């Protein structure tokens, strides 16, 4: 039987606020354990949580960026469970009345654009960090992270393949970074993903029993874990068995998912409205104010790059994958306003360089300004395209501006006709065999002569002039 998989993702993005969601403690990462706490986030009796306005601002921003409807009134609820990373015995979250619903984003898989629905976005607090002692039966608890604001984004079960799941996540991450509400760093845990995976006979309208996958802390793991899980479920059903609804943990070393909780421990969170927190009312004026400050989103930027600069869709997609890269590209254009060559250099040499050095565009050793000037030097025939690559490598190494490197290393292109003629004469003199071939109709040999002249001039001769002179001399 042929199967179709059904995937829904739950993403937790840590919001980039200075302070926690319900108290004035710092959200800074990496401080000594339990130094960013107060009676509120330690869950002392009698304290009163007060909502951080910026958390709401950021969540509205995300809701708008993902085409959600924003609820005029939403509410916070207590999700009750006992686990030592949660000092109060409940997590403050939103349940039956989340702040936003009914959104969507578009993803590109292959040549196709696909719309993935967003079921809801809500705000909640993060839990503390547990460290399990390897030798003794104890765990240590650090409450610094307790109360750090999270935004949970729940997708509709519209995703069908691991690749689509990856594309959806990358797009979501790109959006949170564009609008500046989260770092979106999966490895450091500021962007986390759980996946609900089930399979059903192809064309069926009834979903199968799903498993929830956890511990997916990189894009690669998300795709691999989902792929593994689909295959596992196919095997079970193929053998006449039944998939059990459960939570499964991805093991990135063994590349398998393993059962985490048994069915008997099914959750019973006993949600109820938190009486300590007032209902949240978001009026249209607030939404309009946030909307007015919303930056250009990835899809809008991509469209503009295609329309305004005439770039191919692929170039526009790559260049707008992060706001920083898009800014770099546009900064380059300010110096050298010719989009396609800039795009080629940024996507080719520059991204290649960053990739090799393991750097991001923000700490690129070559500034957008300098790269623009390098391209200008090519365009103005000061250097050849070939020499430009040498200059580029030197810029990466030394951080010097291109003009200075060209001057210091004497790389200025030779456009002096008589100088080039002299070199051409020298090359022709020593190649009687090739001249004969050329005259015999083998015009491809021209490339040989050009190569020889370039070699003699260490790549500095202007190729256009070289070609002209050669054709002239060879008749």
């Amino acid at each position, binding site marked *: 039987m042929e199967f179709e998989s059904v995937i829904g993702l739950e993403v937790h993005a840590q919001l980039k*606020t*200075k*302070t926690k969601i319900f108290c*004035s*403690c*710092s959200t800074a990462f990496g401080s*000594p*354990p*339990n*130094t*960013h*706490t*107060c*009676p509120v986030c*330690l869950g002392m009796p009698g304290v009163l949580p*007060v*909502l*951080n*306005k*910026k*958390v*709401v601002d950021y969540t509205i921003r995300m809701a708008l960026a993902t085409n959600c409807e924003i609820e005029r*009134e939403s*509410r916070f609820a207590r999700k*009750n*469970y*006992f*686990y*030592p990373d949660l000092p109060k015995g409940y997590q403050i979250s939103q349940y039956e009345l989340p702040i936003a619903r009914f959104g969507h984003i578009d993803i590109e898989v292959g040549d196709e654009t696909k719309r993935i629905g967003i079921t809801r976005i809500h705000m909640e607090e993060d839990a503390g960090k*547990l*460290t*399990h*002692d390897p030798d*003794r*039966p*104890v*765990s*240590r*608890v*650090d*409450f610094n992270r307790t109360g750090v604001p999270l935004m949970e984004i729940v997708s509709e079960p519209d995703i069908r393949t691991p690749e689509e799941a990856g594309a959806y996540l990358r797009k979501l991450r790109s959006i949170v970074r564009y609008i500046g509400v989260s770092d979106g760093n999966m490895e450091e845990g500021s962007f986390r993903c759980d996946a609900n995976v089930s399979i059903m006979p192809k064309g069926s309208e009834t979903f199968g029993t799903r498993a929830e996958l956890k511990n997916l802390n990189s894009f690669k793991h998300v795709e691999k874990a989902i792929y593994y899980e689909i295959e596992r479920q196919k095997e079970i059903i193929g053998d006449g068995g039944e998939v059990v609804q459960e939570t499964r943990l991805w093991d990135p070393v063994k590349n398998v998912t393993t059962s985490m909780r048994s069915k008997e421990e099914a959750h*019973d969170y*006993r949600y109820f*409205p938190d*009486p300590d*927190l*007032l*209902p*949240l*009312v978001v009026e249209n004026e607030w939404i309009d104010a946030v909307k007015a400050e919303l930056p250009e989103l990835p899809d809008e930027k991509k469209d503009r790059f295609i329309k305004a600069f005439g770039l191919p869709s692929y170039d526009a997609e790559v260049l707008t994958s992060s706001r920083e890269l898009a800014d770099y590209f546009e900064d380059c254009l300010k110096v050298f306003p010719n989009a396609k060559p800039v795009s080629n250099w940024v996507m080719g040499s520059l991204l290649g360089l960053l990739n090799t050095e393991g750097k991001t565009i923000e700490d690129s050793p070559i500034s957008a300004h300098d790269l623009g000037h390098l391209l200008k030097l090519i365009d103005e025939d000061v250097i050849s395209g070939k020499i430009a690559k040498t200059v580029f490598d030197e810029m990466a190494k030394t951080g010097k501006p291109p003009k200075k490197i060209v001057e210091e290393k004497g790389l200025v292109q030779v456009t002096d006709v008589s100088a080039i003629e002299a070199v051409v004469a020298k090359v022709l003199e020593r190649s009687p065999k090739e001249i004969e071939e050329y005259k015999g109709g083998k015009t491809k040999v021209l490339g040989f002569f050009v190569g020889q002249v370039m070699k003699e001039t260490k790549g500095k001769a202007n190729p256009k002039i070289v070609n002209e002179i050669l054709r002239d001399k060879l008749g």
Partner: protein
Amino acid sequence: MKITKNEVIHVAALSRLDMNEESIDKFASQIGTILEYVDTLKQVDTEGVKPTSHAIFLTNAFREDEEKEHLDRENALANAPEKEDGNFVVPKVIA
């Protein structure tokens, strides 16, 4: 409203309470009585009344995103039965 023994066992498990047979029976009957008392509320006519989660008609209490002083660690850990290197120490929760 009656409450079954199994419901008491379930609620006790969720609250991490260990209970013997005798107290299960006792609590089943006591919780049942409390719920019956609360059921009295059902006699009130609530036609046209929206579900209420808060008794006061206030909305939107906010704080600005400004950092204030933290509790010093000594005090944060003062009530902890066990502590180590600035951490709370609890029985291991994952096998």
